[in-house]
């Protein structure tokens, strides 16, 4: 793709990747702090194991080093879009449960939600740069979950935040891979390939 290979595109990609890495680092630090607040406010044990929850995108991946740049971007985008919806839901539930009693947790959740939205947008910018079509979000609505008990809601929230913290680390790694120049073409590895 000529546009993706141009020097200015390469510079823009590197710039977007660097900023993305910093965003991911800040997001992770804030999610880790939010986890501490969440565990305390919800009366949970920090070491409790949470089974994989339906609808929460798992950061775990096999053969991570073999992924193409496009795969990385698309998987990241799908994940952060899902987290955006999940965090919005958590915020709503938290307001229902605690009302104004815990504005601190609400504010921390809202701040992370904002960063997740910003990061999703950032990923869309990177995809646009590669002249890749950005997948639409229609039909991406998470399936309506059965009404969970309060305790189940709290555990799911814990699972969401833990997985988000993993994603923030993975995203920084993914963007560093993207920012690496390809030895053959000088472009980022994998991005010049067709999906």
């Amino acid at each position, binding site marked *: 793709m000529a546009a993706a290979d141009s020097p200015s595109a390469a510079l823009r990609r590197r710039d977007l990747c660097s900023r993305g890495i910093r965003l991911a680092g800040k997001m992770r630090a804030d999610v880790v702090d939010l986890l501490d607040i969440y565990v305390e406010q919800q009366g949970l044990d920090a070491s409790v194991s949470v089974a994989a929850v339906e609808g929460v995108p798992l950061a*775990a*991946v*096999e053969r991570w080093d073999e992924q193409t740049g496009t795969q990385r971007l698309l998987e990241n985008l799908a994940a952060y879009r899902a987290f955006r919806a999940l965090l919005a839901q958590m915020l709503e539930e938290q307001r229902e449960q605690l009302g104004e009693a815990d504005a601190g947790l609400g504010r921390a959740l809202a701040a992370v939600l904002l960063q997740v939205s910003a990061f999703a947008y950032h990923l869309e910018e990177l995809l646009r740069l590669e002249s890749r079509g950005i997948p639409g979000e229609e039909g991406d609505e998470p399936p309506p979950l059965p009404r969970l008990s309060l305790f189940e809601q709290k555990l799911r929230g814990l699972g969401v935040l833990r997985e988000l913290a993993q994603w923030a680390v993975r995203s920084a790694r993914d963007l560093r*891979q993207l920012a690496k120049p390809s030895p053959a073409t000088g472009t980022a590895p994998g991005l010049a390939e067709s999906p």
Partner: protein
Amino acid sequence: DSHTQYERVGADVTMKCGSMDWDAAVTWTVNGTDINESQLTRSAQLNGSYLILKNVGLSESGQYSCYEGSSWHLKYQTYLRVGTPPKEPVLMCRSNNYPKGFYCSWHLPTPTYIPNTFNISVIHGTKDMICEKDAVPKNRCHIRYIQLFSTVKYKVTLTVTNALGKNFTTLTFDEFAIVKPDPPESVVAKPVPNNPRRLEVSWQNPSSWPDPESFPLKFFLRYRPLILDQWQHVELSDGTSHTITDAYAGKEYIIQVAAKDNDIGTWSDWSVAVHATPWTEEPKHLTTEAQITETTSASTSSFMAPPTTKICDKGAVVGSGAVAVCWTAGLVVAAYSVLFI
């Protein structure tokens, strides 16, 4: 018949001479030496043809043989090995080559004095993983990561078994927690010319860290003059060099560096310590113009500046020792020499 017999320290051991009757005349040897009456102690006694060892200790280990009295036919032989059942083993797992994999290593807190076998199992969620044993060292195995960025914990169980018992220990951890790089390598510290308070320190990523570009390391530098106990610390988020600018002039310093993945895990151990002393000016000596003139008029063929002369920078000196000449001094001397030819 001959075999190996394992007994616990402190146990009482009774050895029968094969199928010989209790009242048969036999001779017992230990490690080829007859156990005769004079050698029998409170801990080793003969009860008929049975050899009784009470409260055995490690020194009782050895080859015990029993011979029929008159014919000296070997009737029984055993290798007695005195030892202890294993205590709970010490297990450690670490990833110094993230994201390739991790290794686990183990040892027993106290020796058993008899052979032990170790069995290790690694489970990730519901999946069993193979931990490939290293040839060297023997108490170590390594695992390649199949998944990265998983929140599911790893559970490692090490079981140690010997003839006298078994024991085990379990470690549970997540992928990020065990990441600990090896210390930085090739740490070098050098004085900075003409800077009495600076030291330039450089190092390299540990060679075991496979991909510093995608998984960058950050570093922690510590330094102190040898004469003080308090360390100064500097954390560096990138780069593999740093200039110390607040060193005490003329004092020898000790410097070390540690590394950590930028995002996860724990700090490495400190690197090998290096020593360096900041640059110091050479001592000055007083000199006059007259001295310079006298010296230059005396010698027309060798352009020698007096060693104490400080009419040029250290950096402009060529040669060394008694024949050191600096360029400007050389020109001055040459000019005078020409005048006096």
